[in-house]
């Protein structure tokens, strides 16, 4: 959905008043003077101002290599850049998958055999501390993440970014502006992974700063090359960034950006309503329409996000494909998206999220059909249903509103005779338990995840990545799928790879190995003053284009 630039209202007040306070409030609004709606064209972008963003949790470390999670990456991304970037200036409608564009590397070549990547670096780029950006800086950073023999090797960075560097053989500075990376095997997703930030990201840190502050302290002194530079951070209160006046590219309009962690959804919405922040992430679904009514803008997108269930293949009930299919049929994804989530998500029928080169709409799979589900259950010998457990977190990054959603599923499944108990855990604990694999006795586990590369599918279905050695938490194993995914991963060009990934996705669908539920639209709610914000097909955004009216 396109961001609307010209909605009325700045810092509108909430309209509903409790009866007892009506008179008082009327008095106050009379004195204060209600904000007049100032409709009209947005006008030309103008520089200046401070943008305050209410984010859904405090951020992790401001060290791009070490940091995990989207929330942190959204901050780090404004300060750090990787060799390769994604074009985030287009909405999901304009570009369902962000295009890979030059970042700190102006251009690159991949050898025929897919093993050697040569990056030609941008000239005249300096880090925020004045250090020049060059090939040595790149090598320094890559070795920090991947070379245990390196003085500044950091095992946490390595752990976070292993998905990027797992096939790296070596990295060398050919000349001050050229870096060469050699792979042990072809790795078609490599360039896309360089742009990702869900886990660790590959933003380039000033080697001078790293050497000065060390691996642990660098997070307190973020020093990158990005459009914004770090000002200060008061943990739990704010992170302030300011415009990098020396930025090599298009300079931001904003003087500064403040990220304010507001973990409680109601508080976040309140802060926006009260004008304390200009923009919030993850509004509670129920607040979206009333915020819109109150004159706020809602920017949604179609990021590579999938809220899905993994089945426990070691469970005697769920090892039966008919049961898995029945569950898939029994869930009313439309209803959940529209009624419960108030249109902040789209129903998901494909295990590959839309923002993905291999995505194709696959509605033929598992459209809501409770009768079909009952039949399948009867065939499987569960005419009277059965009892099972669904594990879910109570909150967490990208989880939307996991408990109400799980309750929704619970009710849908109850309609076809499956009696579900919910096992709810706080996010971080849940992550650990989830990563250990679905325990015996529990039939399903919920997670939300996704990447713009279809390579992601391997994470959750490959038999080699069964938990606890990977994220295939349901211990799904399908040799045919493994084979296809191996080919896809090592394919030399993206087109071939995508074709293979589509086949892989089809296998997963056929086997009903997962139950995709919804794709988040990642809504952001903005005050009418915020202009130029683009919500792209990613879990993060770029702030250089944003300006304040």
């Amino acid at each position: 959905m396109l961001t609307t630039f010209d909605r009325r209202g700045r810092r509108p007040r909430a309209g509903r008043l409790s009866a007892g306070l009506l008179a008082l409030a009327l008095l106050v609004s009379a004195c204060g003077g209600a904000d007049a709606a100032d409709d009209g064209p947005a006008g030309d972008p103008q520089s200046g101002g401070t943008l305050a963003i209410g984010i859904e949790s405090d951020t992790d470390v401001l060290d791009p290599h070490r940091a995990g999670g989207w929330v942190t990456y959204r901050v780090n991304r404004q300060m750090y850049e990787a060799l390769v970037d994604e074009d985030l200036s287009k909405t999901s409608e304009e570009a369902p998958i962000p295009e890979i564009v030059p970042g700190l590397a102006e251009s690159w070549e991949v050898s025929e055999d897919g093993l050697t990547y040569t990056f030609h670096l941008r000239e005249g780029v300096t880090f925020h501390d004045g250090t020049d950006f060059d090939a040595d800086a790149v090598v320094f950073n890559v070795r920090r993440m991947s070379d245990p023999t390196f003085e500044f090797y950091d095992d946490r960075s390595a752990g976070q970014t292993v998905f990027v560097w797992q096939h790296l053989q070596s990295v060398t500075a050919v000349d001050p502006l050229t870096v060469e990376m050699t792979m042990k095997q072809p790795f078609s997703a490599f360039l896309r992974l360089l742009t990702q930030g869900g886990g660790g990201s590959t933003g380039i840190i000033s080697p001078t700063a790293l050497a000065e502050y060390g691996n642990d302290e660098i997070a307190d002194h973020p020093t990158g090359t990005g459009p914004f530079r770090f000002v200060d951070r008061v943990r739990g209160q704010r992170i302030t960034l300011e415009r990098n006046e020396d930025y090599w590219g298009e300079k931001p309009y904003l003087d500064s950006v403040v990220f304010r962690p507001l973990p409680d959804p109601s508080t976040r919405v309140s802060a926006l309503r009260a004008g304390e922040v200009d923009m919030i992430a993850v509004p509670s679904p129920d607040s979206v329409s009333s915020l819109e009514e109150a004159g706020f803008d809602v920017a949604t997108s179609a990021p590579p996000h999938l809220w899905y269930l993994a089945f426990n293949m070691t469970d005697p009930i769920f090892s039966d494909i008919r049961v898995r299919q029945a569950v898939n049929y029994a869930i009313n994804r439309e209803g959940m998206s529209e009624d419960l989530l108030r249109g902040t998500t789209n129903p998901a029928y494909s295990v590959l999220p839309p923002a993905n080169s291999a995505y194709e709409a696959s509605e033929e799979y598992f459209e809501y059909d409770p009768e079909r589900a009952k039949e399948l259950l009867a065939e499987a010998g569960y005419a009277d249903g059965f009892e099972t457990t669904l594990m879910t977190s109570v909150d967490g990054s990208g989880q939307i509103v996991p408990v109400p959603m799980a309750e929704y599923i619970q009710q849908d499944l109850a309609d076809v005779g499956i009696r579900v108990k919910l096992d709810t855990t706080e996010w971080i604990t849940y992550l650990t338990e989830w990563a250990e694999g679905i325990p015996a006795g529990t039939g399903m586990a919920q997670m939300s995840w996704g990447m713009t590369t279809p390579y992601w599918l391997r994470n959750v279905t490959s038999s080699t990545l069964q938990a606890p050695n990977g994220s295939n938490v349901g211990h799904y194993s399908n040799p045919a799928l493994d084979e296809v995914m191996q080919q896809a991963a090592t394919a030399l060009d993206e087109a071939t790879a995508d074709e293979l990934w589509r086949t892989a996705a089809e296998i997963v669908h056929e086997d009903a190995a997962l139950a995709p539920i919804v794709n988040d639209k990642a809504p952001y709610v903005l005050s009418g003053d915020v202009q130029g914000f683009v919500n792209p097909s990613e879990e993060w955004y770029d702030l250089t284009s944003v300006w304040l009216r």
Partner: protein
Amino acid sequence: MVGYLARRAGSMILVLLGVSVLVFLIMQLVPGDPVRTMLGPTATAESIAAVRADLGLDQPLVQQYVSYLGGLVQGDLNTSLTMAQPVAEIVFPKLGNTIILAAGALVICLVIGVPLGVLAATRQYSLFDRGAMFLSLAGASVPVYWAALVVISVFALELGWLPTSGMYDVREPGGLGDLLRHLVLPAATAAVVPTAVIARLTRSVMVEALQQDHIRMLRANGVPERQIVWKHALRNALPPIVNIVGLQVGYLLGGVIFIEVVFSWPGLGGQLYTSITSNDMPIIQAGVLFIALVFVVVNLIADIVVALLDPRTREAVG
């Protein structure tokens, strides 16, 4: 006095040691692997093992505890597992914020709770007394987080008098005035339960104080009731009030979690809650230890104040 302080300090250290052992033991039992959290779902078993070894989490428990204690003695509070930042840098500012919130709440408790209790006591069984005591009980029975949201909705959104959350304006962090504006709502909400407790206690000790023989003596000497109540009876009732206020500090320090969450107050309570669930041992250890320390010190001060208030014990302390 010196001897007394030394004894109390000794027992304080024992209490704190006990607290640290307890925290350590409990946290061993909390499920969830901090390293897994740290490295995310794509991390491999080897990289996890490497980080665990790096952090010393693979050592036997006793050894972990001893080395922790060793560090503590040298003033080293370790580094947060999830935030990769020295614990002191995280815990101290947040402890400071929590203390600001607790102090704000305490001021409200005292300004409202004590007079309410005194007035109720002087009008024992009157409509005012019953009303005030009923209200204070009701206050103590309200789910705080719900009350917090109602308060935000009324005073911040409907009326727009005060900010909804946070400690400072993020765009232009102001000074004390800005802080105070942000403090009012969370402090008032946090104060509800302790105000009720203090009001009720004040009432009951004042009722007792007003029944004492010397109060009758004052009445027999024609001393005006107001002077009797506020000068003599309250002075006599003060020691138990001071004690309960000390205990309320403990409640406030640990009990403001809900307030901190709803008001996004960057305090230690909320931090500890997150850290418990993410198994961030060093933060929890330090956080709980410092809360315990503040609690113990505040109560020591309360004891000393009580002793100083009472001329019968003043010499023992002074």
